[in-house]
């Protein structure tokens, strides 16, 4: 896969089951470097699971996951740890370390993984917090923040190491419209300025079409469509069309209820 637009992440026929229950039944997906891929899919369809597979936090039952041409599935613990330093993950439920202040949460990867001096770390922390509009919360504990504030701190932590690949798990869910737009613009500017590839899981159609350069739809354990945003809008696949329109009529609910 060394075509001229380099592939950042590639999944080949990935299957995953949680105790007998098949979640992914053959996911194949290629994410070109520097693109912003929006992954759509119903709640519970396995989108967060997909992101965990890329980080090597879960091992697929079959198939392969590649990052930068390296096989994540076959990596040992130490190589995985080194690979993960190039990937930023923004968790759906923030996953901040509750015993550390906001500042220490952001500083943690810098302190643990780099040998930057304290002054520089503080400067980076402030810079990222300002980006997400959370500079005031620097010395607060996660428990003192609202859900949306935690989410923004989680986002700042995800980008603190200037990663090559950023995985966003519903970065704007539960945020007010203004902050949502700020985050959308941040996602775009990060990918353009730092030169990061982004994979964004989201349910907000408006922001999906705003940030995406590529789109993919996960349905019943497979990627049933992968296209440009324009292609998605014009899609006559009934599942895709129903999902984008948010229609109650169509194959999606029928499949879940039957």
């Amino acid at each position, binding site marked *: 896969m060394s075509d001229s637009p380099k592939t950042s992440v590639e999944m080949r026929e990935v299957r995953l089951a949680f105790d007998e229950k098949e979640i992914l039944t053959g996911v194949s997906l290629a994410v070109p470097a520097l693109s912003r891929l929006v992954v759509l899919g119903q709640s519970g369809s396995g989108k967060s699971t997909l992101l965990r597979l890329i980080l090597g*936090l879960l091992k697929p039952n079959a198939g392969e996951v590649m990052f930068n041409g390296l096989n994540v599935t076959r990596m040992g*613990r*130490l190589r995985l740890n080194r690979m993960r330093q190039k990937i930023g*993950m923004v968790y759906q439920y923030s996953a901040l*370390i*509750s015993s550390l202040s906001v500042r220490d949460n952001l500083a*943690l*990867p810098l302190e643990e993984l780099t*040998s930057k001096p304290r002054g520089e770390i503080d400067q980076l922390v402030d810079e990222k917090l300002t980006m997400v509009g959370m500079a005031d919360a620097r010395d607060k504990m996660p428990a003192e923040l609202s859900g949306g504030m935690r989410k923004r701190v989680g986002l700042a932590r995800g980008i603190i190491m200037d990663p090559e690949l950023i995985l966003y798990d519903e970065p704007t869910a539960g945020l007010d419209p203004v902050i949502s737009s700020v985050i959308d613009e941040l996602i775009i500017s990060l990918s353009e300025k730092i030169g990061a590839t982004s994979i964004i899981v989201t349910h907000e159609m408006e922001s999906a079409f705003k940030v995406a350069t590529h789109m993919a739809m996960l349905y019943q354990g497979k990627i049933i469509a992968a296209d440009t945003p324009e292609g998605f809008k014009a899609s006559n696949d009934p599942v895709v069309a129903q999902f984008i329109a948010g229609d109650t009529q169509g194959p999606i609910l029928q499949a879940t209820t039957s």
Partner: protein
Amino acid sequence: MVLRMFGPWSAIRTSLQHLSSVVWLLVDTAQEMGDRVVRGRLPFRLSIFFEQTNRTGVGSIGLVSLVSFFIGLTMALLTGYQLQTFGQERLVPGLVAISFTRELGPLMTGIMVAARIGAAYTAELGTMVVSEEAEAIEAMGIGPLRFLAGPRILAVFLLLPCLVVISNFTAMGGAALISRWAFDTPIRLFFDTALESMLIRDIVAGTIKSFLFGLIIGLVSCYKGLSVRGGAAGVGAATTSSVVTAITIVIAFDTLSNIVLVALFDQ
């Protein structure tokens, strides 16, 4: 019929699986820490390590010395009265000293630390797993084993022997005080007799056991914590299971090492 045969086997199989997971936890933690050291960095944050040693060690001194003091005292009193009928109460110091250095000190301290510290480790790590904090640490490439399990395992491994020493001394103190009062043994004489009756091998056996028990408690509690599934109820279940398992394994290894040590040295 099939089920009846299956029952004990599956229990043995699950225990063996858990055992191998615990051994892997040790290997993986050591590997992650070793990798850091090779790269010229500390395996974990010293501040976290000292925080753990402080609560594990310093924080347990009160409980350990209180319990040991009264067990030593009771032991001296009860055995003393029995021996007194034969005029042999001068055997009390040696009896308490040997029982504690070799057996009761490590065992009682192990049980207390498993309940006090092992439970806390499991609950903490379990909560971090449930709230995805542990996964986030792993996702950042920090290595949750060296970062979370490493300092805890090492703290209890290194601090348990220190607590055992305290346990031994307070037990002797309790025994000496009661002997002074009940059998008119001068305190000075009590300690001299105790020292005379102890052998190096008793102290060595006690020390080996202490380190071993510390390692067991650290590994079991971290393993139980990091493998929590299923929310708050899962954390509760894991914490109970951690204490029960750690105490059971400590007693099992205690018995085993007694048999081995007696077979090797006491003939």
